[in-house]
């Protein structure tokens, strides 16, 4: 099963990439997805996460083909 990951704004710049793909065969939370793609990077303390463009908690379980996104606090308006 495959998860697409997207990163935005300062987090994208810090990681040096805007997307990742994670293949998995067991249940994964959003937080697990981060560490699969960024084993050497702690999850930023103020990070926001979404699955399929809806906000989620970091302990939400992901499904095959989900799009997970990680990004810093929003600053629009």
């Amino acid at each position: 099963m495959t998860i697409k990951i997207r990163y935005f704004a300062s987090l994208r710049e810090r990681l040096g990439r805007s997307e990742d793909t994670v293949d998995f065969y067991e249940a994964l939370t959003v937080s697990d997805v981060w560490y699969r793609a960024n084993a050497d990077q702690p999850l930023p303390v103020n990070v926001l996460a979404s699955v399929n463009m809806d906000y989620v908690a970091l302990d939400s379980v992901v499904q095959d083909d989900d799009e997970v996104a990680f990004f810093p606090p929003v600053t629009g308006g």
Partner: protein
Amino acid sequence: MAVKVCTGAFEPWQEIQDYQNAQISGGFGATTVFIGTMRDFNDGDDVKSMMLEHYPGMTEKQLQNIVYAARQQWSIIDALVVHRVGTIMPNDAIVLIAVWSAHRGAAFDANRYIIEALKTTAPFWKKEQLTTKQARWVSKNTDGYTAG
């Protein structure tokens, strides 16, 4: 109800007039308008321009959720939300929120709700280009109910 993300400059008053002419047939006794405009200063520094990034698809979805929540909470006739992305210059409009209702209370309250919810949940991010040639991401939005 409409939400729009614009990649180029927009004229907020024209947007309001065009939307009202096309979508609203009557019944409104109150229209409230909020326009957010780019300042040429922030946190004590002069700002030359700004880059506004967004998450295409999620941004529109969250804006629609916000407008829907406002409609559930207040008796409003219609609402229009327009937000700019891309490179923005001082005095450019960044965001427009217009709310039409029969009476002023709902129009004011729903408009305030929409802008405050947008500020905390709509996925947009600002990167400022300072006149010193430094660039920096805005780290967070202030709480509109307590900030000056």
